[in-house]
């Protein structure tokens, strides 16, 4: 597996950080570059300011950073569709405590794809 994974994270981010409960309202994103099935690089980037109805801002932001895969615990229908339509695969990682555990699980093929059944109202009612 060679890819760039984004994980909504609680501060300070990184592999040991907790997953952000909801992608649109997380503190920041941990970006994990994976090559040959192994973590090669970890970067931390801030989230974008959230406006009601501005669900597509983080989608476009992460797409521009080259993200190909997102692990999330919660997300609304619109951003899920936005990620899917942008070619970013979304996986459900809500059962994992840390970013690193979730990343290892997706590398091992143990995470389910985030489906419409996983979608939620999203904190703040807009994402």
């Amino acid at each position, binding site marked *: 597996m060679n890819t760039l994974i984004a994980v909504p994270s609680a501060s300070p981010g990184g592999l040991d950080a907790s997953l952000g409960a909801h992608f649109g309202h997380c503190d920041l994103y941990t970006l994990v570059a994976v090559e040959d099935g192994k973590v090669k690089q970890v970067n931390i980037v801030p989230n974008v300011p959230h406006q*009601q*109805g*501005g*669900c597509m801002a983080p989608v476009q932001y992460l797409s521009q950073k080259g993200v190909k895969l997102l692990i999330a615990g919660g997300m*609304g*229908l*619109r951003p899920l*569709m936005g990620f899917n*339509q942008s070619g970013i695969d979304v996986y459900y990682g809500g059962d994992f405590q840390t970013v690193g555990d979730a990343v290892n699980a997706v590398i091992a093929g143990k995470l389910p794809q985030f489906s419409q059944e996983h979608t939620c109202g999203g904190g703040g*009612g807009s994402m």
Partner: protein
Amino acid sequence: MYRIVIVSSNPESFSVLAGALQADSRIAIERVAAGDQALALVISAAPNLVILDEKAGEPSDFEFIRSIMQRNALIDAVVVSRLSEKEFHESSEGLGILMQLPPRPGLPEAEALLARLTLISGKDFEREVK
């Protein structure tokens, strides 16, 4: 050009809102009649924003918006609804709807919408509507 499609069976109820929005020369408004062809026409038009009148969506207004998002999540949406704020929030969760409008929206709603569009688009839309 920022393109807006209004879906309604009663387009004159949007005359004040549309007039105020079109005071900004960067905004173009198209109208689509409510009905079974409306979804296909909106998807085909691929506007920046769709404004959906109450009871103009098939099979329901929120399902109509859901169908749009499933095909093109880049389209922002505004919905006319008489629901309370809480009811609207609960019914529309996850759909990323920009704002709720009252029936026959007027100048205050146009101003609020332009302010919201400025926030999410980064374009400095004229807020001084007349």
